[in-house]
């Protein structure tokens, strides 16, 4: 069983489109994250949710909107996609907000053309 799963694994779309990436964890963790890894392999946190509540929102354009229907899911919706949004997006979870041992998903490679 995959602990943290994201779908889709690959996503190619045109500029201006709206797309969503889904993430689910079956670890019973309270805290979930979205990270963005750019072409230089630099990983940067975007959002963090704890028990469905937003606790971290880094400097991310408003076009990015996370949604957490329950604590096992944290989806990322992106509006009006731009070329610069092309990256690999990783979902992660940890036991709670005080625990930094995070489990990551396999990543979603987003390519905007």
């Amino acid at each position, binding site marked *: 069983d995959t602990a943290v799963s994201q779908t889709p694994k690959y996503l190619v779309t045109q500029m201006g489109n709206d797309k969503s990436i889904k993430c689910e964890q079956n670890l019973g963790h309270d805290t979930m994250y979205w990270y963005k890894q750019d072409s230089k*392999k630099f990983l*940067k946190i975007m959002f*963090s949710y704890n028990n469905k509540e937003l606790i971290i929102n880094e400097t991310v354009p408003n076009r990015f909107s996370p949604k957490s229907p329950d604590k096992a899911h944290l989806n990322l919706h992106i509006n009006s996609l731009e070329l610069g949004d092309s990256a690999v997006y990783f979902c992660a979870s940890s036991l709670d907000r005080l625990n930094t041992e995070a489990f990551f998903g396999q990543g979603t490679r987003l390519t905007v053309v």
Partner: protein
Amino acid sequence: LAKTTQPISMDSYEGQEVNITCSHNNIATNDYITWCQQFPSQGPRFIIQGYKTKVTNEVASLFIPADRKSSTLSLPRVSLSDTAVYYCLVEDSGYSTLTFGKGTMLLVSP
């Protein structure tokens, strides 16, 4: 925000011990040091975490000097499958998240 600095890349051969050192000069009192491993096209994987002195698990050892301004990840007898990017991370005080640097690309050759 505690910034980390580590070598961009390292080369090694199978069976050797590899030590990767990371500097984090402005680490805060409550910050922990975490190392993660990332294989190509995969998400980062937690390896080891420590606060001070030495921590050892089945995968690696982590050495942290008294001033905690640096840390060294030690991989005993590396194999080809240890080829990966290794990230040194410092917990963001108050946020409990992992802030990634650029990582060290370790290449293990036969």
